[in-house]
């Protein structure tokens, strides 16, 4: 039965957006950070991050349900316009810097792994942000629907990749099971929990999701599927490469694709994985770009925020090009992740506290 669309996004689309925002992290240099801090137990870090996020996420759900609107509106409501803008700006900074760093990072990956001619670096960064800009410009519905169409393909690709490399795995490489020690792993888990803070960031879109139930369902599924995927891939990397080697491999996902074999048909399938990965990256950036512009619009109080997409994307490309090479971006990313982790874990708690205080005042 055909019916006219109401312009809002449903739970599946929202899940797909969360998936493209978070799950793609397994393919960039994030696993290196986690391997560095968790050693053989790195696969536990995302799980711990997930546990750390349970509280803030639940509080966020309560707030969204109560106020029936998005995170930013709630912040404005509870903290007043000045702090509201400040918080929105901080979130924007975190999202934007991640966008900028990653766009460079992804262009670097392509060049390092597939087209070893550095002259195309600019072109690649411009192209991918250009595609993302186009998609983001078509609106949140477009991002959600496109993501919903391709996410099943990404999931199938990931499963294929894992299965096609089973021959290369050695589960003994996973031992010692505790890796760098329980404390280290737990610290890493909490420190890197901002890797999944997207689930809180995406709260700014809550008002555009059809129902609260859809929002909650999609958030929960998006979070655990992304975390599960990261945990599995971290374990796979260690099992395939051994953790000594994996620390020195810049982009383990792409090395893994080189090992994928489909019988005797094709020598190497990496180009196929490359295509899917790049399509996913374009969607990832589209979502980030959309949220950046949305937040910036809130900060400067500019309603037609879609017009901000182009300047945001342009600035992101230029800033991303500043570091000489992708290794310089590494420490920056780590600092960013640690600092924003704190913010995202605390934000819902603070908001909830303010909400309680208010209620009490009213009484």
């Amino acid at each position, binding site marked *: 039965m055909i019916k006219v669309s109401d312009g809002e996004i449903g739970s599946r689309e929202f899940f797909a957006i969360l998936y493209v925002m978070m799950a793609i992290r397994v393919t960039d240099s994030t696993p290196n950070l986690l391997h560095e801090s968790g050693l053989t137990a790195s696969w536990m870090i995302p799980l711990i991050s997930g546990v750390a996020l349970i509280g803030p996420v639940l509080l966020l759900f309560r707030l969204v349900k109560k106020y029936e609107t998005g995170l930013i509106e709630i912040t404005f409501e509870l903290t007043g316009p000045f702090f509201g803008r400040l918080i929105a700006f901080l979130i924007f900074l975190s999202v934007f810097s991640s966008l900028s760093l990653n766009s460079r990072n992804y262009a670097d990956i392509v060049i390092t792994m597939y087209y070893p001619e550095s002259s195309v670096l600019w072109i690649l960064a411009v192209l991918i942000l250009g595609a993302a800009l186009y998609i983001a410009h078509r609106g949140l519905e477009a991002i959600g629907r496109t993501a919903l169409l*391709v996410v099943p393909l990404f999931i199938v690709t990931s499963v294929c990749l894992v299965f096609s490399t089973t021959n290369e795995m050695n589960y003994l490489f996973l031992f010692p099971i505790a890796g760098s020690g329980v404390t280290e792993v737990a610290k890493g888990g909490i420190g890197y929990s901002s890797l999944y803070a997207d689930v809180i960031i995406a709260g700014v879109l809550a008002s555009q999701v059809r129902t609260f139930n859809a929002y909650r369902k999609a958030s929960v599924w998006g979070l655990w599927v992304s975390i599960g995927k990261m945990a599995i891939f971290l374990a796979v990397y260690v099992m395939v490469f051994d953790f000594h080697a994996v620390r020195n491999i810049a982009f383990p996902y792409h090395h893994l694709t080189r090992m994928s074999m489909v019988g005797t048909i094709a020598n*190497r399938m990496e180009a196929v994985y490359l295509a899917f990965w790049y399509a996913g990256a374009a969607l990832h950036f589209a979502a980030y770009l959309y949220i950046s512009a949305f937040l910036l619009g809130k900060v400067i109080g500019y309603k037609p925020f879609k017009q901000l997409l182009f300047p945001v994307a342009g600035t992101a490309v230029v800033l991303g090009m500043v570091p000489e090479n992708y290794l310089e971006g590494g420490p920056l990313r780590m600092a960013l992740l640690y600092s924003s982790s704190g913010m995202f874990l605390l934000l819902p708690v603070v908001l909830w506290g303010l909400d309680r205080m208010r209620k009490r005042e009213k009484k």
Partner: protein
Amino acid sequence: MGDFLKRLFEGAGGDQQASANDVPKDPFSTNLDDNGKRLEELFLFPLNDALKFRELTTQSGQRVKVLFVTGAADTDKISDYVIKPLLNSETEGKQGLTDEIMNHVLTISGTEKISDFQAAVLKLINGNTVILIDGEKEGIAVETAGFESRQVAEPTREIVIKGPKNAFVESNDINHSLIRRQVKDHRLVSETAMVGVESPQKISILYLDHIVDRELVKKVKDEIDQIDKAAILTLSELEELLEERPYSLIPSTLSTERPDRAASFLNEGHVVLLMDNSPDALIAPVTFWALFHTAEDQFLRWAYGNFARIIRTIALFLALLMPAIYVAVVTFHPELIPTDLLLAIAASRERVPFPTLLELLLMEITFEILREAGIRVPAPLGSTIGIVGALILGQAAVQANLVSPLLVVVIAITGLASFAIPDIGLSVMTRIIRFIFIAAAFFMGFVGIALAATAMLAYAASLKSFGVPFFAPLSPHMPSSRDLFLRPILKKQWLRPLSMRPRDAIRAKPKGRSGS
């Protein structure tokens, strides 16, 4: 724009005959001759011999004029059901003579009272007969339309092996009848709208009132109302005028020549437009699935229909991506090919003097010419095309070192795959998009293909045709009968229309739905 304005103002100020819509709504006078003269003038009599009239006197001496337009009206009907009863009638010159004649005398099924000249002209050009009675301020319009038309025949475009074999013809009435035969439901609404400012044509808007989304009907009617064109001759013109994005590759309506397909679209809540002179029905809105499915999929058994769908899905991907993948692999990703084949390709390409892209474009364009020639050539010359085509796309071209044999196979498979795409629109779209992919692959290999595909998918996914998303109900996900890439068995395709009605009281609360 300026042109348009000029015409607008000139038209307004110009001194010319009023179009049918602009005929003054003057009421009839009681004088029969005046009325007759006025109508003669409107039809440019005696210059124009289209308007015929017959004057007669009833048994009781009442003067009556019978007017009709040759070609539009069926003269046999007029003789039998209008003139004969009128001549035999004994009417008394009392009040309500018009009613008397309508209810007592005329033996035809459709009669209507008219009282002004605009109505009279409209009725006349649509084939009705107008009866004017002396001394009465009202006339009678009698349905005697008798336009010539083709017999119902077999479809030529949407061919099925198994299933109904009748197609729409150029007559709106017959098309209505063909649809009514399929959908025996009293809630099948058939509204009439007029388009064309100068020469108005009737358009029928059909929908099933208990299934359709009212908002959709409203949108379609609004679009039709906004059409501002002098004359619309066929449904294809209407199609383009209704189009929200006339430059886009993706259509927002679909035309079908099969009544059974139109009926099944009606049952799924689409709106069907019919128009005289057009042997097809326009379906709005359109989704990807409507373009991708064929009528036959539902006529075959579950396994057979889905087998065909799987083959067609493969064909769609081949038609879109095969040449682009060839270019990308040869140019950027040779490691994807088994070494033996790689060597073979290299060997065969060695003697070809052009770069891969040029070679590919040459062949693609030749193939497009071949296709165009195949359509345009008169039937008796058809076999010649075959011979010529085989030369270019075959052994001769390879032997002349113009192309490598592998490329010939690639082009052939691509061409073949594009033939397997059922809808013309989808097929042409595929062929055009293919060139975009080739360009993308040429510049960036698989990365280019991936970016182009994502951007195009985002474009298609964000499109709405009359408010309905292009990939609905897959994305955005909506409850549906799940008849998407594969179809479930019919028993499982059963979706109670009630549950989908957006105007249904229970389901109307937007926040109350699961939304998943």
